[in-house]
């Protein structure tokens, strides 16, 4: 155990949507209340919870995309609110849930945007021309995400899964120490879901990349995350290893529904299954071992 600071140290975090934001049903309400936790350097942390439990808000606060109402966030030991945006962007990359782009940038141009926080501040750097290393890193990231062959295609002319992979490639091109991902596998085919999880693990092993990912996929989180944080209604419900958190009682308390939790045959980690149809009407928990 070394004494290096955790990637994130979050204390008493609170956030509420401002009056000018149109968030149906939750205007002015607290979407996060008194959330405290650490993200260790080099761990993969999964954020789980029902819709509206504050996962995405939390992720955006971690990325300094939004400002917290109360509490503090320390990124590698220094206060996040005091950091300049591009310093944050050199340490943290964010993969949004949805990508909206009205102008037809190519995939290559999109991925190269990830090099922006690292841009040179010279004569040409002011105007933002990328150097050789920027192109190389962008191409590596595109190769990892299997979008290199789409480099010259417009972001409008590719499928939503390909677009998602390009956005992940953009985040990788940022060379961050922490990757924040909002539903990274939502639009992806099975093979690319597996591939992305594999690449995340690889980057985690090789570079010590820490990952915080929001997911609806309990099983993916259970298999690939070191720890899981379960959220309910803006508060932290439970945080710990998949074994501690993915339990029928915790899931019942948060999702208000009974599920089956057994063991994954390969990894031995918890596996969640929806109850079958054979019993009329009722959900029943039948833990198996």
């Amino acid at each position, binding site marked *: 155990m070394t004494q290096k600071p955790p990637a994130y140290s979050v204390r008493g975090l609170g956030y509420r949507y401002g009056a000018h934001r149109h968030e149906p049903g939750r205007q002015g309400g607290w979407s996060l209340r008194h959330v405290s936790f650490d993200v260790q350097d080099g761990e993969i942390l999964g954020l789980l919870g029902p819709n509206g439990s504050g996962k995405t808000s939390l992720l955006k606060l971690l990325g300094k995309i939004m400002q917290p109402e109360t509490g503090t966030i320390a990124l590698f030991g220094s206060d996040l609110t005091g950091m300049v945006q591009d310093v944050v962007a050199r340490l943290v990359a964010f993969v949004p849930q949805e990508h909206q*782009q009205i*102008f037809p940038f190519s995939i290559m*141009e999109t991925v190269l945007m990830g090099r*922006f926080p690292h841009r040179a501040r010279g004569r040409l750097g002011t*105007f*933002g021309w990328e150097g050789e290393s920027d192109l190389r890193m962008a191409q590596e990231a595109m190769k990892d995400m299997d979008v290199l062959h789409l480099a010259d295609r417009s972001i409008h002319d590719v499928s939503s899964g390909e677009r998602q992979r390009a956005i992940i490639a953009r985040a990788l091109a940022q060379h961050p120490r922490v990757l924040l991902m909002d539903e990274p596998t939502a639009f992806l085919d099975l093979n690319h879901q597996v591939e992305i999880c594999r690449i995340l693990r690889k980057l985690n092993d090789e570079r010590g990349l820490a990952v915080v990912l929001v997911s609806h996929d309990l099983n993916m989180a259970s298999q690939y995350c070191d720890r899981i944080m379960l959220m309910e209604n803006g508060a932290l419900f439970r945080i710990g290893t998949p074994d501690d958190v993915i339990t029928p009682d915790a899931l019942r308390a948060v999702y208000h529904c009974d599920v089956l939790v057994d063991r994954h045959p390969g990894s031995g980690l918890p596996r969640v299954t929806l109850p079958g149809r054979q019993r009329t009407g009722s959900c029943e928990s039948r833990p198996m071992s």
Partner: protein
Amino acid sequence: MAHGTTINTAATANRASGFDIERSIVTHRRWLTVMVCLLCASAVVVIGSLRFGAESISYTDVVDIFLLWLRNGPARMESAEPNFMILMYVRLPRIILAFMVGACLATVGVGLQALLRNPLADPYVLGISSGAALGAALAMLIGAGTTIMAMSSLPLFAFIGGLLSIGIVYRIAVSYGHLPVHTLLLAGVVLNAVFSALIMFITSIMDPNRSFGMMSWLMGTLLAPDYPALGALAVYVGVGTTVLATQSTALNILTLGEESARSLGVEVERLKKMIFVIAALLTGAVVSVSGLIGFVGMVIPHAVRLFVGPDHRLLLPASALVGGMFLVIADALARTLLAPSEIPVGVVTALAGGPIFLYLLTRRKGGLAS
């Protein structure tokens, strides 16, 4: 130079993976090619339009006068040759003015389209030009500028008017989170109506001799300015476009939306303020010298984007040059179509740009409804 190696790597990548790097990003080579072509075209358009106007001067006359001028110097030319006076003190300054106004409007259009993430944004359509015009009209009313072409405090009032209307448009835009295009256009329509009413009110209480001048100014008229006035405008244009151009990459990223832009390290609030101020400054400067000239800021960036792509490093300067050329041609038409009388150039651009705008609006209806 760094870009030499960039292109070499690009070529290697090209061979290795089978995609075309020239089509993937704006390389230095492509940037240079496009800009050199556009600069040559601009020179051709500017020189070519010298012969058009109420007084017919053939190209051979133009060349003769120029050669004579080179040989004799300007002092002796003025008395000797009436056409020289027309060329040097009426036509050339007006063409330069038209070029700068067109370049400004196109630049502002590019900036607003990136800021509002909307390819239909335009200073005229959104009511920013009429806000600036209202400011200028107020300045004329209180006598800050005795003549319409005065560069004194007119641009300042126009700048404030423009800033005010950008502020209103932007507030409307952000109050809906991510903005529906029709809301934005509607906001522009309402702003235009209100500002036009106020301008008409000001015109009605003005002394009739001056109100006629103001009406023709409002329709968008390029009058031959003197060279100091041109110089003042050139400073506005130069500073505004250069500052915006240094933010090209940040503008690219801003089109992803504010949240993504922030996560990629862009200081979004600072960039937005910068675009506000530059757009208001350029619109104010342009409106105070040439009145309301519409649609250049929307049509030109749109067309240029189709040919050079959306990267602002190329889109911005290319749009400026094409916008300049467009207005020089439009003004040449305005001078000659009904010669010896003139059509206001704003009428020409509106007649050309309006239908294009409608076409784009109907074509994009489905795609931009969300």
